[in-house]
């Protein structure tokens, strides 16, 4: 069951001497929706995810913060001080690191999460195979996790956190180092997770966000520059060319519009989604 996230005027410094990482940001992410936080490196995207997941509060007790975070109905002032797993699942930037490395097979690697939660083997047998199938990695169940490709590792890493059935899914730059096919698969997976979980993902590129997000937030130097729908974002895209790699996007969209009859189904879907047709 998905849950909502409300961030109210959150400010953060990692330490008294450090510069401000977040400057009074506010977000309202309704349950069952997908929010994409875009921004350049160092904008504070990972900080937002770690703050929501409780990682920041736990591991940086010396940090100075203000504001509130409300996650799944619980309000924390300012930050959660414990990891909020399994209600909140966090996918790290590096999928290889997310794989524990202590299990011999993909199946056992996913089971490791359930073991940590005190779930039984039988529970694992009922949850894991359908999940692996949904993610398109059921054929990898007996493979060693360290022998997989980037896209396969990414999906295994996703399985290790989705198996806990989180209400909120936070993904830190999930599309990094993925090829086009793997990215399309990821889009499909994120779309299928709608209603079951609230997703927040970060990215430095816009293509994934435009394909799956209901809400787009642009973050720069700890401040929100934009918060709105993908259509609204497209309308104001030119404002963000200095902070996001948007060169060619406007032109590509203009190119697409007059020749909709020549578009592929996925391009049509995207254009429809963005209200361009």
């Amino acid at each position, binding site marked *: 069951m998905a849950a909502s996230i409300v961030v109210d005027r959150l400010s953060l410094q*990692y*330490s008294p*001497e*450090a510069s401000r990482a977040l400057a009074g940001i506010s977000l309202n992410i309704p349950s069952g929706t997908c929010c994409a936080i875009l921004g350049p490196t160092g904008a504070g995207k990972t900080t937002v995810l770690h703050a929501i997941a409780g990682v920041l509060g736990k*591991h*940086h007790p*010396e940090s100075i913060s203000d504001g509130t975070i409300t996650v799944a109905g619980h309000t924390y002032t300012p930050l959660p001080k414990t990891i909020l797993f399994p209600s909140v699942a966090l996918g790290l930037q590096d999928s290889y690191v997310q794989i524990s490395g202590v299990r011999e097979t993909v199946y056992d690697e996913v089971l490791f999460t359930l073991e940590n939660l005190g779930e039984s083997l039988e529970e694992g047998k009922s949850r894991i195979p359908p999940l692996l199938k949904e993610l398109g990695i059921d054929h990898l169940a007996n493979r060693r996790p360290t022998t997989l490709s980037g896209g396969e590792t990414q999906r295994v890493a996703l399985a290790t956190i989705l198996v806990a059935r989180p209400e909120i899914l936070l993904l830190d730059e999930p599309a990094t180092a993925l090829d086009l096919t793997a990215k399309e698969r990821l889009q499909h997976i994120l779309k299928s997770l709608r209603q079951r979980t609230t997703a927040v993902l970060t990215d430095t590129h816009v293509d994934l966000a435009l394909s799956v997000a209901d809400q787009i937030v642009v973050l720069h130097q700890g401040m929100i520059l934009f918060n709105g729908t993908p259509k609204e974002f497209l309308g104001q895209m030119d404002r963000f060319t200095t902070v996001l790699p948007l060169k060619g996007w406007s032109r590509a969209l203009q190119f697409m519009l007059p020749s909709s009859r020549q578009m592929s189904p996925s391009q049509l879907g995207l254009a429809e989604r963005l209200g361009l047709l």
Partner: protein
Amino acid sequence: MLKTIRRRIAEEMTGAALPFVAFCIALNLTVGQITALLKIPLYLDSIGTVLVAVLVGPWSAIICGSFANLFASAFGSPTMMFFIPVVVVIGAFTGYLARRAWFRKWYLVVAGGILQGVLAAIVSAPISAYLFSGVMMAGTDFLVLYFRSMGNTLLNSVFYQGLASDPVDKLVTYLLVFFLTRSLPRRLISRLRGAANIQQSQSPA
């Protein structure tokens, strides 16, 4: 007492410390590859233990050294298991020095390294002498034999052989760890419990 030890270990072995200790165990076992590539005639096989003692704590260092010796036994050096008391002493002593801020000044590091080497030689001598009669199936056995042929007892011969190598080895290890830890970004090592033991030369990241 056991509960106190378990509590101390749990305090040190937080999330980030666990993989770091595992890395340091592996480093102890593979540093020989680096010294072989650079053709340096030193073991440095306790560098991981010393790193953990400084950056995490003494109990984690004892675990690091003990597990490294266990793995070494499994990988073809079976006698290493018997020298676990030596690594216990290395981990505990280094952790003690680190807590007393000895890893903040280079001259204290030098003194600590030499002391550590002498201590290691003292602790390993009886193990080597009484369990293995000074025979470790290594080139240093001939040095022991040489000291014995000069009329020394077995225990003294093994001790002198240890004194010939351990202080230099531990001194270099300590200095390496000193310079390494000084150059690490504070924001990174703040996640490890022993961050207060060292003084960074850089400003925090």
